[in-house]
């Protein structure tokens, strides 16, 4: 709806489509000047941090998974790593490898879903994957094959791709035998070519050419692309242990609402997700992936949020290669899970969810019951950056029709693949001031 009074105009995108969850954008202009801009989340709160209190820590991975049906593996991984720190558990190196493999599966399926079903229709003038399939069935089928391979990895370790059941504190409830991974290896080899074609496909989209001053944040490791561990790093110099999350970032209340925004302490918004990871860890994807990345002609690192879709496609290729590496080197662990004793204490961890760094902190009592839980999902952390990008977009929206403005806002937001269902710490309300 567009309302035109004397010189005021409100652009309201009432229901963002092709994002996971429910949100809206409201932009208020006066004399063409931006008065107010809000990304409003009307996803109902589900109170995970509240009802986790009093639950046994061992139940937590199955409960936090339910925050998000699209990235349950990342929720399980942040939870188990936080508890392993809390209980002083050292995991078997083979389990560590399996967990990389597990997260590769989720990156592949989640990224393939986003690229083909949520984002690509924007660039090709379609309203959904179904109409996209009428135009370019080959690309859609290719995307579905890639996505299916990612789901198959998750199911191999957890029985199903949504809310898989195999992950636990200390490892997995069951480790696959080598021969059980043989078919999966064949499947991954088949979709590797698809993934290369997908990178080429998305890099030829008509990506708006913008450059922004952005602080990119992701985990960083010395030798490998970050997934389940590493130090917090940023393009403006952060280098910290995950346990020191609160020293680096603050949750900040915007003056016009009572929402929580995350900012780098003393600075401003920051950017999480595939583009941040690629920018900060480019060489760690290995020569097979970086050569494909260079052939796109897009410079890496770069500060154009619209290249996120290409970064996402590069991570699909990386995750396929990494999954194949794990399969080829795989020796089952002596025991699928390390044993442990519960105790009181605090454990914190960050893992790289498909959409970016996912922070969990738990405190337990002597019996291993949760006293407090804190969960900071990537979309909540990206919220301030999304609004910053939308503000940059505003001058170009003034002369546009409602449909065009909506489309441009949605495109800018989809760079972050926001997962609004992850509603803990992520609720924003409008308070009109007259």
């Amino acid at each position: 709806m567009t309302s035109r009074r004397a010189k005021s105009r409100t652009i309201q995108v009432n229901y963002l489509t092709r994002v996971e969850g429910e949100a809206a954008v409201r932009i208020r202009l006066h004399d063409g000047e931006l008065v107010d801009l809000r990304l409003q989340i009307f996803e109902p709160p589900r109170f995970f941090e509240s009802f986790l209190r009093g639950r046994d820590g061992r139940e937590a991975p199955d409960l936090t998974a339910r925050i998000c049906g699209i990235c349950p593996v990342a929720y399980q991984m942040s939870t188990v790593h936080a508890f392993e720190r809390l209980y002083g558990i050292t995991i078997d190196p083979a389990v560590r490898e399996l967990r990389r493999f597990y997260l590769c599966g989720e990156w592949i399926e989640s990224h393939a879903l986003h690229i083909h079903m949520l984002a690509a229709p924007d660039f090709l003038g379609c309203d959904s994957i179904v109409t996209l399939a009428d135009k370019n069935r080959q690309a859609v089928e290719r995307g579905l094959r890639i996505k299916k391979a990612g789901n198959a990895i998750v199911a191999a370790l957890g029985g199903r791709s949504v809310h898989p059941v195999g992950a636990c504190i200390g490892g997995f409830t069951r480790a696959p035998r080598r021969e059980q991974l043989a078919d999966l290896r064949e499947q991954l080899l088949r979709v590797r070519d698809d993934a290369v074609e997908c990178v080429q496909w998305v890099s030829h989209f008509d990506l708006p050419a913008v450059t922004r001053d952005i602080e990119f944040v992701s985990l960083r490791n010395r030798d490998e692309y970050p997934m389940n561990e590493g130090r917090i790093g940023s393009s403006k110099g952060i280098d910290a242990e995950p346990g020191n999350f609160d020293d680096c970032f603050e949750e900040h209340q915007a003056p016009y609402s009572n929402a929580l925004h995350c900012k780098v302490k003393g600075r401003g918004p920051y950017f999480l997700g595939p583009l941040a990871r690629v920018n900060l860890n480019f060489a760690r994807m290995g020569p097979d992936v970086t050569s494909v990345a260079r052939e796109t002609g897009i410079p890496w690192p770069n500060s154009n949020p619209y290249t996120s879709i290409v970064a996402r496609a590069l991570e699909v290729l990386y995750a396929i290669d990494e999954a194949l590496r794990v399969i080829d080197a795989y020796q089952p662990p002596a025991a699928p899970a390390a044993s442990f004793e519960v105790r009181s204490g605090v454990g914190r961890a960050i893992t790289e969810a498909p959409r970016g760094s996912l922070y969990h902190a738990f405190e337990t009592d002597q019996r291993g019951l949760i006293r407090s839980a804190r969960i900071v999902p990537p979309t909540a952390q990206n919220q301030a950056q999304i609004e910053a990008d939308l503000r940059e977009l505003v001058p170009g929206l003034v002369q546009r029709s409602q449909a065009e403005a909506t489309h441009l806002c949605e495109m800018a937001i989809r760079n972050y693949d926001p997962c609004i269902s992850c509603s803990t710490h992520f609720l924003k309300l409008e308070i009109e001031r007259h």
Partner: protein
Amino acid sequence: MKPRIAIFKFASCDGCQLQFLNAEDELLKLAGQVDLAYFPEARSRAREGPYDIAFVEGSITTPDDARRIIQVREESRYLVAIGACATAGGIQALRNWADIEEYRRLVYPSPEFISTLSTSTPIAEHVRVDLEVWGCPVDKHQLLAVLRSLLSKAQPVLPAYSVCMECKRRGNVCVVVARGEPCLGPVTRAGCGALCPAFNRGCYGCFGPADDQNMESFARLLANLGVTGDDAMRRLRGINGYVRPWRETADDIAAGKK
């Protein structure tokens, strides 16, 4: 004319509607057989009702949603509640035992602006539901079978027997008998394929109560395995904890009656 399909979301994780998109092999074929009139997660163009079949994901947790579900019912000829949130209130129904004011204060610094109900309730507590598909998440194959049945104007048939039946058919070793592991399989509806026992762990009840569950006997089974008090209560008060037979047994255990 192709049947008009709508997919609505209430308080949920999106995982059940994702199962439609996870039908990689069937998706394009299915899309040709129906008119996907309303599916905002996958399509930017939405069309108004009435709809022939509405799939509803999520539970009712806000005053707005309590009004919206009535509207959804009015414009839907056949309404299918999908997943634990829609059929049982979901994991967020744990608030139903808690002080919602305290919950709000714990998560949000300005709790007075959070619009929420003190309960999370299934769709059937608000409107007439034509079919419930259970599971957290719903099983993709069950979902597709339901859709195919409805498209051919047949009444869908879903199993209501327990996970134990599936577990035996799968040839799993019983985790209760062999390892003394607590397992909700005997009182849980089949549909997942007895996943947890196949992964060396006890069932935790994603698919909700089976029709033929015997809670008296199950409470004794837990006690015999040494699972009593709060530990026993928590096992039932989980993803489907607000469904009557489990809710009542868990409440009895919490009150020290079992």
